[in-house]
């Protein structure tokens, strides 16, 4: 499809009714439930997938070169009730039972659309390269060979696992063949000769890739799209790490170009269409604004899941990876400026200027592109047990969560509130907000719900540490902080190992569609979350770094340097939310230097805190554990809720208020210009940190014209040369954002980088909108 036709479709999408639902999935899921209920888990999973893929509508849309869509309808009231009731039927059970059925989950909103016998976690990447090299048939053969090897053994569950996988491959092949029939019929009806030829070609493509490896770029993208569609819309397996598309598609592109079978423009059109298809299936809403009607209503799976594409970056051995396709992937993102897919450009020292120019130009126009730094990422990943060769292949399978596609388990998270251990360190390990009545007392510290979702949502207490009256220096406080961080992480590890033992028991014999395309799952006949793959990670999202830095700076200045207040008296004020001295809070907020202004003595705490965090993460990683913890600095949008379990902090933050977001300074604290902000952030020892976003908002006037673009290029380049980790940019003024709140119809396509995913501003909730507005505007 040409770019113009795609843009028309995009405009239609902006007016999409949020009630539109792929109802066939629900219908056939309900129908199939009793049919296979006597089968074991894996065969039942495969049969269910087959049942649905055999029946859902297949159809093509005008002008499409990449085909594969789902039929969306607005459900009748009865249908809606029926669909909504399913969630209740499945999941209105005690949490302990949920744990046995699913082990863990991302959120209740995520859980509610998934059947206990047919769910996927998503947030993972597949063996894309192998998929394109060997095709579906190659994978099927591998499973069959493994099954062959098990002949004569008693291992029933392993055999069933493979049988389930084979059912899945067959179901997917069959689905693609149904499309071959569909385009054949369309071709016969088609009076336009050119289109009829195109359709005939598509028939051939579908027939071929239903089993065999793709032969060219068009076939490769078509196979990737069919897999994506099945994964996301049928299996509910979204947030895919597409990995390094410009690398693994390059051989196809090169061959086609060399043979004269493809022009650059045609390649660009295909990529653009692939991007569009990734958006077509999305609901017009923002999943992180849970209060929105469009989110509450939704019956879909993976309805708002971005997929991640890595572009550029170093190749194994440190060779530069930017190629001709890299440019096309950026061009397509720039042209469409859609929220999906989420393009991650991997920077490296010496990246070619022409490419950098294109990237920064697209980012200035608010395309969904962010930059990560290979110079720190590749080193950091190796610190947590990832082989050098694999580290070069890193991608993302969630907002800012690093991932090695096809070799690593799906996303599991722990939102680690970095401010909590500070509060505990100031209170001898007791949380002043812990009144004992909203936490189940249990030896595992964390509630089952928090363990399953990966939260620290209750005002947990810590372990006894030095009383503040005995602290003689900031080092004493930092030591107590370390003690609390260690305690919280060790307790997490202890609880995790206990839960994981249960999980492995319950999960035995279970399969999910993604197991069909990962390294180790088929070979070991174990689903990925229980040891099938090479790597298993829990991403520990350190949150609230700036709040901790600012608090330590305030203590250093007020208590240990100026002697204006004793630490004991300060803590007393903090715990009473400054009841007796409200002006102390104002003073701490307004009169003490803050992180983000390139003030060395303040910024020095960044390294101290991050080193403690990373040391203690390493402390709970041991060889015999399946899952390793990887530290990131990423709060996503949860920085407001994380503040609820915290008393006031010495930076002037009040009890219950939000903590700082992601890598950013506390809201509004950075007042010294963009370079000062970037210099501050670059002092964080990112060679130990494996992810996390830095949100930058720049006024359009500061980066306008050729000069502005050169400034942007230089600013970003310098930041990465200095060891910065990530940048995501919004170039939009506060005035425009305020106007967009008033006149949403005028700003339908204003696309915002939120935190590792994008959303359309006018589709976001008011709270999320205000968070973007409150970001410091650089100008």
């Amino acid at each position, binding site marked *: 499809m040409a770019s113009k036709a795609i843009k028309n479709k995009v405009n239609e999408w902006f007016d999409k009714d949020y009630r539109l639902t792929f109802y066939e999935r629900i219908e056939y899921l309900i129908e199939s439930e009793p049919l296979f209920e006597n089968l074991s888990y894996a065969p039942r999973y495969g049969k269910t997938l087959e049942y649905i893929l055999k029946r859902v509508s297949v159809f093509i849309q005008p002008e499409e070169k990449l085909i594969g869509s789902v039929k969306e309808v607005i459900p009748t009231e009865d249908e809606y009730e029926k669909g909504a009731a399913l969630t209740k039927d499945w999941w209105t059970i005690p949490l302990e039972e949920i744990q046995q059925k699913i082990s863990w989950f991302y959120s209740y909103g995520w859980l509610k659309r998934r059947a206990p016998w047919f769910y996927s976690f998503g947030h993972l990447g597949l063996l894309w390269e192998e998929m394109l090299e060997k095709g579906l048939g190659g994978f099927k053969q591998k499973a069959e060979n493994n099954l062959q090897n098990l002949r004569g053994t008693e291992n029933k569950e392993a055999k069933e696992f493979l049988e389930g996988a084979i059912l899945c491959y067959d179901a997917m092949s069959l689905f693609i063949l149904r499309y071959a029939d569909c385009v054949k019929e369309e071709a016969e009806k088609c009076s336009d000769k050119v289109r009829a030829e195109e359709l005939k070609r598509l028939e051939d493509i579908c027939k071929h890739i239903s089993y065999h490896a793709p032969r060219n770029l068009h076939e490769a993208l078509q196979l990737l799209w069919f897999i994506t569609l099945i994964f996301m819309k049928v299996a509910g397996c979204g947030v895919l790490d597409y990995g390094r598309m410009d690398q693994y598609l390059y051989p196809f592109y090169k061959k086609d170009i060399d043979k004269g079978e493809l022009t650059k423009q045609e390649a660009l059109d295909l990529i653009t269409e692939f991007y569009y298809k990734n958006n077509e299936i999305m609901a017009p809403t923002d999943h992180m604004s849970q209060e929105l009607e469009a989110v509450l209503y939704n019956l879909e799976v993976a309805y708002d899941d971005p997929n991640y594409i890595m572009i550029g970056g170093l190749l194994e051995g440190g060779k530069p990876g930017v190629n001709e396709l890299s440019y096309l992937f950026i061009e397509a993102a720039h042209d469409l400026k859609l929220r999906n897919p989420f393009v991650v450009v991997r920077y490296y020292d010496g990246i070619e200027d022409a490419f950098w120019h294109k990237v920064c130009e697209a980012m200035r126009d608010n395309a969904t592109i962010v930059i990560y730094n290979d110079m720190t990422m590749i080193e950091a990943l190796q610190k947590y047990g990832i082989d050098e060769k694999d580290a070069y292949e890193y991608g993302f399978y969630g907002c800012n969560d690093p991932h090695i596609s096809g070799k690593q388990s799906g996303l599991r998270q722990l939102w680690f509130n970095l401010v909590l251990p500070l509060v505990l360190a100031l209170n001898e390990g007791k949380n002043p907000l812990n009144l004992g009545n909203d936490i189940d007392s249990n030896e595992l510290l964390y509630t089952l719900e928090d363990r399953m979702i990966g939260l620290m949502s209750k005002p947990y207490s810590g372990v006894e540490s030095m009383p503040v009256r005995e602290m003689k220096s900031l080092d004493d406080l930092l030591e107590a902080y370390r003690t609390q961080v260690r305690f919280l992480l060790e307790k997490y590890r202890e609880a995790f190992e206990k839960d994981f033992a249960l999980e492995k028991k319950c999960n035995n014999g279970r399969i999910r569609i993604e197991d069909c395309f990962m390294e180790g799952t088929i070979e070991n006949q174990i689903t990925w979350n229980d040891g099938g793959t090479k790597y298993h990670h829990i991403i520990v999202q350190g949150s609230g770094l700036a709040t901790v830095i600012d608090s330590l700076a305030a203590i250093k200045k007020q208590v240990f340097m100026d002697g204006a207040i004793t630490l004991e008296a300060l803590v007393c004020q903090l715990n009473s939310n400054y009841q007796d001295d409200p002006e102390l809070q104002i003073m701490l907020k307004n009169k003490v230097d803050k992180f983000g202004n390139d003030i060395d003595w303040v910024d020095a705490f960044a390294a101290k805190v991050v080193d403690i965090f990373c040391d203690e993460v390493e402390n709970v990683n041991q060889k015999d554990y399946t899952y390793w913890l990887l530290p990131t600095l990423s709060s996503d949008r949860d920085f407001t809720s994380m503040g609820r379990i915290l008393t006031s902090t010495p930076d002037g933050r009040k009890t219950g208020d939000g903590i700082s977001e992601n890598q950013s300074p506390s809201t509004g604290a950075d007042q010294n210009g963009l370079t000062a902000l970037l210099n501050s952030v670059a002092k964080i020892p990112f060679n130990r940190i494996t992810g996390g976003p830095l949100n930058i908002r720049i006024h359009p006037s500061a980066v306008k014209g050729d000069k502005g673009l050169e*400034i942007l290029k230089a600013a970003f380049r310098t930041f990465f040369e200095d060891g910065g980790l990530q940048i995501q940019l919004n170039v939009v003024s506060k005035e425009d954002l305020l106007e967009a709140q008033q006149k949403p119809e005028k700003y339908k396509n204003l696309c915002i980088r939120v935190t590792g995913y994008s959303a359309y501003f006018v589709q976001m909730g008011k709270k999320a909108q205000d968070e973007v507005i409150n970001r410091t505007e650089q100008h």
Partner: protein
Amino acid sequence: MLGLISRVQRFSVNDGPGIRTTVFVKGCNLSCQWCHNPETNNKRPEVIFYEQNCTLCGKCISACPKSLHQITENGIKTFDRKNCDGCGKCVEACIYGALELVGTQMDSQHIADIALKDLKYYKNSGGGLTISGGEALLQKDWVKEVFEKTKTHGIHNALDTAFNVKWEEIQDLFEVVDLVLLDSKCMNDEMHKRYTGVSNKQILENAKKLSKLDVDIIVRIPVITGVNDTLENMKETAEFLSGFENLLQVELLPYHSYGIEKGKCIGKENPVFETPTHEHMFHLNHCFTEKNIKSIVV
């Protein structure tokens, strides 16, 4: 040596090429009615009062050694600005951000150190340090000291000036200056006197001398409706500049009223001018381009 500074702006993108740090010195010998940095005009430290932030807490009253801050019986905060010598004690005491001191003495080394923090940004963007004002040349010796220090690190030095100083007093400065951002108000001397308080004779003579030196020039013209926004004035300026071989470009800056609010906070009432239209700016710009002088509207 100490210099009197009003503020330092990092990631400054409008005062010369690339990413820059701009230092605004305090004190000026022009009094342009449209001044957009009115807080830099006066040669002594001043206290800015942001009324909207004041909670009438009274901390400034007890902090001021001269009792210049008062709260009237009607609950109105007053400040006897005339007798203030800018000691800054009240600003230190204020925790609500209602008072700000503009005008601090800073050592040339301190400024050079701040500038050095962004050295890599300058190198990657072709930027550097700009000293602006106020009138930087009123503190020429200090400016020279700063520039000498930054020069040794290869920093590109830009001087932003209105040039109303004696040539003999400043000519040795240009050894350490790479670029002069030369403010041009208007060619008609009567108008110049009326709106800036001084004649433009010395300014124009200095400009001519500068055109013979090995230093780049960018001429910046704030375009003020009813003052200098005529084709005639621009043509005359273009004529004047047409022999300048070291002129990089002319920048036309349409008037904006940001200075009005800032002025109020330090007790200054400046008149409001009209902002010229885009079309008009385009026409004025043409006066330079037709003489083959590179010119842009900022």
